[in-house]
């Protein structure tokens, strides 16, 4: 099966020729009423008692609701005020053509990135990513620490705020400099740890289209065996700069990832609407972003996290919908409340990984401490998620079994979501020079892992 692009130029052209609509009516008169209508029509209902539902009818209804919603609403280009719309036949054709797997990375470090069905017994593909900004001098040690993780199938590095001591400002030469520094340093770090061909997703520092384009280079920069992301605007919107990325990624030839984060409590409302929007975003990712995989992080509007009960339901239900009805490859990105070196963050990572893995997602772990604080993330949070993801597949866990475990784990922290501990900085819980965790954090990690074993989780080693 051919990979994307699928009718890219015809679709991009719709951002100039589609039906005219201003931003406000797009949300108020199109997005919100249609979402309400499909929630009602398909009888979608959130059940707090089952953060990991095992109802195939619910999953399939969510898929149909998401498809109908996407077809009715489309995607607004905010620069042209034109709606990119689709025929149902096009969506079905694009879905039919999805190959369901890609060989990513290169040489000995290449890995098969695959679509996962619900209750898959194959382990998830895990991308280790701190998802935060860091000091310039910590970029390499942090990257090396993540690249050293044995379960990392791919790595996405932290984001730079300064380059050569200069504060990076979007769409200025400092952003280009920071993006090049990011791409080069990450490539160098991968070589240093002995994984020169590992699948890299870069560069988060390159927020703008020009910065992304500036780092496409098969020697020192982002290679065609690597990947980069293209985002959306809240909600179901895009602009010309993002569309520039879409075109460039395809023409350069790297793997494109669709980066979307529907907001629980935002225009989508509560769990039901957020789950439907998740499905719609996957279709947008395939057709507008022309993405080879989807990376999604639904999050709570107040807490910027997705480890609470209602968000775990959104993640689980929507991934089941996608896994059962398509061959799309999807990553579930953990957004956790607590910070590094706390028990809470490790339990949150475990719950997120369980709900995601059993529901057919791959893992992208983890944004911690509300994804807000510089230098505040370490590979151990991601390691916990990865180990739990592997355990879930290893023990052939069913959704019912996962639901029981998730209930027990969530009970450990759900009362503390609003005032979660911020934890420690990378430099406080890691030996920075060696890029390895300190004993205190490793001991804490072991205690939490033992507790998870007590609860019934069977790790492969």
């Amino acid at each position, binding site marked *: 099966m051919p990979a994307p692009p699928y009718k890219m130029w015809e679709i991009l052209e719709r951002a100039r020729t589609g039906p005219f609509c201003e931003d406000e009516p797009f949300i108020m008169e199109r997005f919100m009423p249609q979402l309400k209508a499909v929630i009602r029509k398909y009888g979608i209902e959130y059940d707090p008692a089952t953060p990991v539902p095992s109802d195939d009818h619910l999953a399939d209804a969510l898929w149909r609701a998401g498809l109908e919603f996407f077809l009715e609403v489309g995607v607004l280009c905010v620069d042209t005020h034109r709606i990119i719309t689709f025929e149902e036949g096009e969506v079905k054709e694009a879905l039919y053509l999805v190959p369901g797997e890609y060989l990513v990375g290169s040489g000995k470090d290449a890995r098969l990135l695959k679509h996962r069905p619900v209750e898959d017994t194959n382990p998830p593909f895990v991308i280790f990513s701190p998802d935060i*900004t860091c000091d310039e001098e910590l970029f390499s040690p942090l990257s090396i620490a993540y690249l050293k993780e044995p379960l990392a199938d791919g790595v996405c590095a932290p984001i730079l705020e300064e380059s050569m001591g200069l504060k990076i400002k979007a769409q200025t030469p400092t952003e280009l400099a920071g993006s090049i520094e990011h791409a080069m340093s990450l490539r160098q770090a991968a070589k240093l740890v002995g994984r020169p061909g590992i699948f890299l997703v870069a560069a988060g520092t390159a927020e703008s289209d020009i910065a992304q384009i500036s780092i496409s280079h098969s020697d020192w920069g982002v290679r065609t065996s690597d990947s980069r992301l293209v985002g959306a605007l809240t909600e179901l919107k895009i602009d010309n700069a993002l569309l520039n990325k879409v075109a460039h990624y395809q023409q350069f030839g790297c793997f494109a990832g669709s980066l979307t984060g529907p907001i629980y409590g*935002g*225009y989508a*409302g509560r769990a039901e609407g957020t789950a439907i929007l998740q499905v719609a975003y996957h279709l947008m990712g395939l057709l507008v972003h022309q993405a080879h995989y989807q990376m999604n992080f639904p999050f709570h509007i107040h807490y910027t996290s997705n480890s609470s009960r209602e968000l775990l339901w959104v993640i689980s239900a929507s991934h089941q919908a996608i896994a059962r009805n398509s061959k799309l490859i999807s990553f579930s990105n953990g957004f956790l409340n607590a910070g590094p070196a706390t028990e809470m963050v490790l339990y949150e990572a475990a719950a997120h990984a369980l709900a995601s893995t059993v529901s057919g997602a791959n893992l992208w772990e983890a944004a911690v401490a509300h994804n807000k604080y510089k230098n505040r993330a370490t590979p151990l949070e991601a390691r916990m998620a990865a180990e739990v993801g592997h355990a879930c597949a290893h023990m052939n866990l069913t959704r019912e079994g996962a639901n029981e475990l998730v209930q027990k784990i969530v009970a450990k922290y759900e009362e503390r979501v609003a005032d979660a501990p911020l934890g420690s900085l990378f430099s406080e819980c890691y030996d920075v020079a060696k890029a390895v965790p300190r004993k205190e954090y490793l001991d804490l990690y072991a205690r939490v892992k033992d507790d998870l074993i007590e609860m019934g989780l069977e790790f492969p080693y």
Partner: protein
Amino acid sequence: MAHDELFSRMAQAVIDGEKERAVELAQEALRLEIPPLEAINKGYIVGIQKVGELFEKGDFFLPELVMGAEAMQAALAVLEPELQKRQEVRERLGTAVAGTVEGDIHEIGKRLVCTMLVANGFDVLDLGPDVAAETFIEKVRELKPDLLLLSALMTTTMPEQKEVIEALKEAGLRRKVKVMVGGAAVTPSWAQEIGADGYAENAIGAVEVAKGLVEAF
């Protein structure tokens, strides 16, 4: 219909986000020759304050907030001409100009803050996303707001908050307006570093900070 019952229905129309009902009730108030200021204060303001409270409690989210604000605005549009005829003015806590800084196209957080401020008695002009420093300066000079709200989601657009503050100084306007900054990546230390007057973690906190700044102004 007794006036109290009418006021209660006005409040409920805002809570339910029922724009048409809110407008009909405003028209009914005019027919009954109820003073528009009384209808606003005892009906619609009560409703929007309740919406704000429910948002704070986590029972309401953005859709309810936006729909409630829209219902109230629609009703006010019916009552404002009569207010002007009577030369009456609605009581306001303060005025604000808000926008996401240049280079940043994110705006949901800012919208939440603006809506919550409106719900709490502020008059807010939302300039939208990707707003140039000169536009902020122009609006501060023209409207003389109590507050200027600068939002930035990304670390790479946060420096623009600082540049707007510097531009205010250069234009001789810095002491004439209180500056609040916010956004996903913004922290209290950043707010302090760039010389902002206020920072809040979220929309609920922003209302308290705004009230405090206006009182102290």
